[in-house]
C-alpha cells in the first residue's frame, strides 16, 4: 500500500476529517491561506465563514455544548488569533471541548514583529487546557490527534494549535497517516472514583436528615444527567442545579428546587444553607454559588464532592469526602452501593425536611410582580417563549439580567439545551452560540434570549445567518440599558447610572434585521406578547429578531447579599431575608 503524500495544509484538514470533524468555524487571512486552499479542494469538512473571529469561537462553543462533540475553529495569525481569545477564555471557564487552529507567520519570521504576528501560544496560555506550536508538517497528524484527545477527555477544555505558514506549504508533500491512538506519558484521564470514598459518601448520604444535591455543568459535560436523575429519584432527595447545570436534572420535576446561587430561588438557597449532607457533583463551588464568604457556606453540612478535576476539589470549600472521577462512573457505583447498603434513607427525617422545603417553596420567590397593565415584565416574555416552544428549544443567552431571567423562567428538562457563558460571562456570546446550535441541529428551534446591550456586541453575525439561512429566533428583552449594571447601580451606587444607559442611541432593531434580510418584530404591549411571539416562531425558515420593550426598571431577584451566607437574600425591592 502506498502512503499518501500530503502538504501540511492538506494534512490539517484531512486530520480533522479523520478525527470525525464535520464542521469548522473560521475566517481566512494571510497566514492560513494555504489551509484555506486545502479546504477549497475537498468536501468532507464544511467550513462556515463567520464575520468576526470571536463569533467563530462562540459558534464552535455553542455547537460543542449542544452536541457534546468538540467545536473546531480556524483563524489567521495576529488579529485573527487575538479576536479568538475571548471565545477561548469563555470555553475554558465552562470546560467546553474546543480545538482552535491559529495561523502563524513563517517560522523564520517568528519573533521579528512580522506583519500580523502575535504570540498566540503565549497569549492564550492561561486560558487553554494545552497548546501546541507546530514546528514541522510531519508532526501535524500526531498533534491534531493529541489536541482532540486532550480537549475532549478528563475535564474538557480548549486546545490551541498554532501553525506557522511555512508548515502548510502546498509544495512540500509528506507521507500522511492518522494515528490510531494517543501516547502521552504526562497526561492521564481520571477514570472511576475511589470505591472506598464512594462508599463513605453513600453512607453519609443515606444517613442524612437534611440532604441536598447540588449538580453543575460537569454532569452535563460528562453525560451524567440520566444517572443523576436516577440516583436523585431513588433517594427522593431535593436537588438544585447551577447556572451551568440547568437541564442536568429535569426542571419540571417536583424534587427540583430551581437554580441556586446569586440569583437562585429562595428554596434552593435555603435548603443549601440548612442541609446536613451536601452532595456536590460536577460543580465547583464558585463564588456566584457560595457567596463571597465561604466560611458561612453550608455551616452544618458534611460536604461530598465529586469532580473529574482534582484541582476543583477543596479549592474554595473544603470537601469532607472528595471523589475524583468521571460523573458517570461515580454515579453508577453510587447507585449500586445505595442498593447494597444496609443503611436506608431516613423517611421520617426526609419527610420533615421536605415539609420545611415546601414551606420555603411556598414563598414563590420567582413570582412576577407586575409594574402595570401596559408594561411587559421581562420574565413574562421568557415564560411566553417557554410556552410557545413547549420547553423544548435550545436556548442560548448572553450576559446580564436577561440571562438570569432566562435561567429562572425557561425550565429545562433536558441537558445541553441551555447554552450560556456561565463562568466568563461573555456578552456577545448568544447569537454566535445559537448559530453553532443551529448548524448542529438544523431542524431544532434555536432561540437566543438576549438584551439590546449584549446583542450589539456580535450583531455582525446577522450576515453569517443570512449566508447560511439560519432561522434563529432572537428574543431581545429590550430595557434600553445595561440592565444588570444598572441594577447594581440602583442597589449599591445610589442610582447613579454611570454609563449604563443609552436609550437615545439605540438602533431601530426592526429595520436593522430587515437590512440583513431577516425579519424584525417589535412588541411593546403585554396584550400582543403571545400572538406576536407565535407569529415569530411560525416563520420557520426565517431569522426573526423580536424586540420586546420590557420594564426598564425591573431587577432580578432573589439576589444574594454580599458577604452573607446562602440564606441571606434580597427578595424584592422592599424585602430581604
Amino acid at each position, binding site marked *: 500500500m502506498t502512503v499518501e503524500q500530503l502538504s501540511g495544509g492538506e494534512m490539517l484538514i484531512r486530520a480533522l476529517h479523520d478525527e470525525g470533524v464535520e464542521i469548522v468555524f473560521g475566517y481566512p487571512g494571510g497566514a492560513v491561506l494555504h489551509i484555506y486552499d486545502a479546504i477549497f479542494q475537498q468536501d468532507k469538512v464544511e467550513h462556515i465563514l463567520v464575520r468576526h473571529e470571536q463569533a467563530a469561537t462562540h459558534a464552535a462553543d455553542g455547537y460543542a455544548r449542544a452536541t457534546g462533540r468538540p467545536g473546531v475553529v480556524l483563524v489567521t495569525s495576529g488579529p485573527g488569533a487575538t479576536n479568538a481569545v475571548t471565545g477561548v477564555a469563555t470555553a475554558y471557564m465552562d470546560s467546553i471541548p474546543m480545538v482552535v487552529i491559529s495561523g502563524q507567520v513563517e517560522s523564520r519570521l517568528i519573533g521579528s514583529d512580522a506583519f500580523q504576528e502575535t504570540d498566540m501560544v*503565549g497569549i492564550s*496560555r492561561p486560558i487553554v487546557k494545552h*497548546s501546541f506550536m507546530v514546528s514541522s508538517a510531519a508532526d501535524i497528524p500526531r498533534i491534531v490527534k493529541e489536541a482532540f484527545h486532550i480537549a475532549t477527555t478528563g475535564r474538557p477544555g480548549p486546545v490551541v494549535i498554532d501553525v506557522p505558514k511555512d508548515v502548510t506549504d502546498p509544495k512540500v508533500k509528506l507521507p500522511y497517516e492518522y494515528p490510531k491512538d494517543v501516547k*502521552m*506519558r*504526562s*497526561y492521564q484521564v481520571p477514570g472511576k472514583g475511589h470505591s472506598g470514598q464512594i462508599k463513605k459518601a453513600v453512607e453519609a448520604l443515606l444517613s442524612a436528615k437534611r440532604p441536598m444535591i447540588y449538580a453543575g455543568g460537569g454532569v452535563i459535560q460528562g453525560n451524567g444527567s440520566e444517572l443523576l436523575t436516577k440516583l436523585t429519584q431513588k433517594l427522593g432527595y431535593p436537588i438544585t442545579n447551577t447556572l451551568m447545570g440547568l437541564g442536568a436534572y429535569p426542571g419540571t420535576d417536583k424534587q427540583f428546587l430551581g437554580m441556586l446561587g446569586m440569583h437562585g430561588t429562595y428554596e434552593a438557597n435555603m435548603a443549601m444553607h440548612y442541609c446536613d449532607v451536601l452532595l456536590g457533583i460536577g460543580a465547583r463551588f464558585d463564588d456566584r454559588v457560595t457567596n463571597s464568604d465561604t466560611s458561612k457556606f453550608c455551616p452544618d453540612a458534611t460536604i461530598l464532592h465529586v469532580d473529574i478535576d*482534582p*484541582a476543583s476539589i477543596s479549592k474554595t470549600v473544603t470537601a469532607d469526602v472528595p471523589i475524583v472521577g468521571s460523573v458517570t462512573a461515580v454515579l453508577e457505583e453510587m447507585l449500586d452501593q445505595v442498593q447494597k447498603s444496609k443503611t436506608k434513607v431516613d423517611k421520617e427525617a426526609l419527610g420533615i425536611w421536605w415539609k420545611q422545603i415546601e414551606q420555603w417553596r411556598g414563598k414563590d420567590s420567582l413570582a412576577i410582580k407586575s409594574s402595570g397593565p401596559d408594561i411587559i415584565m421581562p420574565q413574562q416574555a421568557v415564560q411566553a417563549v417557554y410556552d410557545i416552544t413547549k420547553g423544548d428549544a435550545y436556548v442560548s443567552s448572553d450576559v446580564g439580567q436577561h440571562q438570569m431571567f432566562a435561567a429562572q423562567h425557561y425550565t429545562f428538562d433536558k441537558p445541553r439545551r441551555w447554552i450560556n457563558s456561565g463562568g466568563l460571562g461573555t456578552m456577545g456570546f448568544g447569537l454566535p452560540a445559537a448559530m453553532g446550535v443551529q448548524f448542529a441541529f438544523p431542524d431544532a428551534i434555536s432561540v437566543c434570549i438576549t438584551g439590546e446591550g449584549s446583542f450589539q456586541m456580535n450583531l455582525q453575525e446577522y450576515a453569517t445567518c443570512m449566508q447560511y439561512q439560519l432561522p434563529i429566533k432572537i428574543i431581545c428583552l429590550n430595557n434600553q440599558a445595561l440592565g444588570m449594571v444598572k441594577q447594581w447601580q440602583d442597589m449599591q451606587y445610589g442610582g447613579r447610572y454611570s454609563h449604563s444607559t443609552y436609550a437615545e442611541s439605540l438602533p431601530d432593531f426592526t429595520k436593522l434585521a430587515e437590512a440583513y434580510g431577516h425579519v424584525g418584530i417589535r412588541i411593546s404591549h403585554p396584550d400582543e406578547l403571545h400572538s406576536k411571539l407565535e407569529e415569530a416562531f411560525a416563520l420557520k425558515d426565517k431569522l426573526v429578531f423580536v424586540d420586546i420593550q420590557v420594564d426598564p426598571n425591573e431587577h432580578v431577584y432573589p439576589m444574594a447579599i454580599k458577604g452573607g451566607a446562602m440564606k441571606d437574600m434580597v427578595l424584592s425591592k422592599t424585602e430581604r431575608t
Partner: protein
Amino acid sequence: MRHIISLLMENEPGALSRVVGLFSQRNYNIDSLTVAPTEDNSLSRLTVTTNGDDARIEQITKHLNRLVDVVKLVDLTEGAHVERELMLIKVKALGAQRAEIKRTADIFRGQVVDLTANVFTIQLTGTSDKLDAFIAAMGENTVLEVARTGVSGISRGEKTLAL
C-alpha cells in the same frame, strides 16, 4: 510554610512558561526556581520553592499536576530530603580584610574561585539559610555582587523522582 516542589516535565519549548505562568496567574509565590535537563534528555527537572498553608500547597501541586507537560511531581518537604543552593559571591577584599574573609569562607566551607587585588569571588554551597548567613557575615559594605542558583533538592534514601 516553605515547600520545595520538584517536578519532571517534558523538555519542550513552552513547558517552563506554563509552569511559571501558573504561579503568576493563580497568585502563588515563587521564592526560587531552578530548571535543567535530566539524564533523560526528553525530561527537564524543575524545582521551585514556594510558601503557603497546606490548602494552598495542595492547590499548587494539583494545578501543576494538571499541566499537560508535567509528568511527575514531588513535594520534597513532605519527607526527609537534601537541599542545596549554590552561590557565587563577589566581595571587597582589601588589606587585612583579605585574611579575615578567607577565614570566614573556610568556616562556611566556601572556596575562593577568583581574585584580584581588591576582590574575592567565593563559591559556596549549602542550604539557603547557610548562604544567607554567609552574606550576613560579610556585611553589606563588603558584598559587591551575589549570584544564587536557587534551591535544588532530592529526597533521602531510596525514593526517587523518576519515570
